[in-house]
């Protein structure tokens, strides 16, 4: 790792000033679970690390009318074990349980994961399927926009050099909704070979009225499988859903790598989306 200096802002405002002052010479560090290995491999060599892990003003989960707000520094473990999130967003808990290990989740943060924007990251597909928004802040003000538009490329986001991701907002699912986060990995907690996040809403308790499918572990930022979503509308438990699987496979963009070939990954997408849809319907019926 190249030499660097730790800067310790005591407030978000100070952090924004420091980032505005140093811009690309600085990197924000929250849990550092992804950043530290990157620095050790010298993929990045900032002069300063702005430590925001201690900014307790960004560590919260707020139950508000109609929506949940989570601070960016909230740890994965806090989200995983929150009774409120367990009730309202069980799909998020399912996602967190598949992420790394307890140790990683105890220290790593939700904001850190999203800002890192690894296409194989688990939180983004799940949160996109839930219609999440993010807030970013700088000395120039704040902006808010859908998480779907936040990840722009491989490890790239819409963040300007002086901006900090501070908050994630997730609307409560409609009544008769159910979701699933399915991840195929070699070992529990590993990087996903293929991942699918699904949220569906039923008409009454029988037919899919609305579906959201997000494919992760692609060569691109998470993909909303809109054709698969359209194919899922009208389906009931037990219906043939091969058309949903075929549609998703056409929209997927995996790459051959050490985890598997394109053909294998496309096959996984088909399997996972069928399982996710069936699970989501069953869970919606159980509400």
């Amino acid at each position, binding site marked *: 790792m190249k030499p660097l200096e730790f800067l310790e802002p005591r407030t978000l405002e100070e952090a924004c000033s420091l980032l505005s002052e140093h811009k690309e010479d600085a990197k924000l560090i929250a849990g*550092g679970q992804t950043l530290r*290995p990157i620095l050790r491999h010298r993929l990045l060599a900032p002069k300063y690390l702005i*430590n925001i892990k201690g900014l307790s003003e960004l560590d919260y989960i707020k139950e508000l009318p109609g929506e949940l707000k989570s601070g960016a520094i909230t740890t994965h473990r806090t989200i995983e074990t929150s009774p409120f999130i367990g009730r309202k967003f069980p799909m998020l808990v399912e996602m967190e*349980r598949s992420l790394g290990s*307890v*140790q990683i989740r105890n*220290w790593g943060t939700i904001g850190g994961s999203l800002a890192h924007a690894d296409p194989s990251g688990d939180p983004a597909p799940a949160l996109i399927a839930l219609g999440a928004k993010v807030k970013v802040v700088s000395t120039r003000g704040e902006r808010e926009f859908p998480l779907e538009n936040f990840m722009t490329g491989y490890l790239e986001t819409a963040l300007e050099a002086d901006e900090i991701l501070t908050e994630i907002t997730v609307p409560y699912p409609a009544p008769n909704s159910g979701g699933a986060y399915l991840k195929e990995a070699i070992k529990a*907690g590993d990087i996903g070979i293929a991942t699918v996040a699904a949220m569906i809403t039923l008409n009454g308790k029988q037919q899919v009225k609305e579906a959201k499918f997000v494919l992760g572990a692609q060569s691109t930022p998470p993909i909303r499988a809109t054709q698969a979503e359209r194919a899922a509308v009208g389906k009931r438990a037990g219906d043939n859903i091969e058309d949903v699987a075929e549609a998703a496979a056409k929209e997927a963009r995996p790459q051959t790598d050490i985890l598997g070939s394109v053909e294998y990954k496309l096959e996984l997408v088909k399997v996972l989306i069928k399982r996710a849809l069936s699970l989501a319907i069953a869970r919606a019926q159980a509400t």
Partner: protein
Amino acid sequence: MKQLLKLKVNGDDHEVYVDPRRSLAEVLRNDLGLTGTKESCLSGYCGACTVLIDGKAVKSCLIFACQAQGKDILTIEGLAKDGQLHPLQQAFIDHFAVQCGFCTSGMILSAKALLDENPNPSEEEVRNGLIGNICRCTGYRKIVEAVLAAATDKNQAYH
């Protein structure tokens, strides 16, 4: 440029001058001489570096030592009290859950955090809780038995 760090480890206060790039694992081992915490993959994968920070299991190789200031750090050296092994340590011995011993420090600390939070885990909960700790020797069965045994140990108050 080195920086002064104040770390509280196993109840003791330490002041060390370290390069800010150092991980908590490096500082524990090299500056504080606490070599029970092991470094292996340096990628946050194997868990041999697991310590507890404020009671929560974390991978010390993935944490900058600077970020561990102002917290209560527990390493394997901090488990035994007055020469008496912690029930988990004794259970690992009694159930042959140690072979080469390299994963053991991290494994025991992960298990401690697990049992502190969930004193009566099922086998599945123990296996899930130890996902972050790899063992190349034992095949995990004896480790899981030891953790379950420590949980049900009625002779010693489990703390």
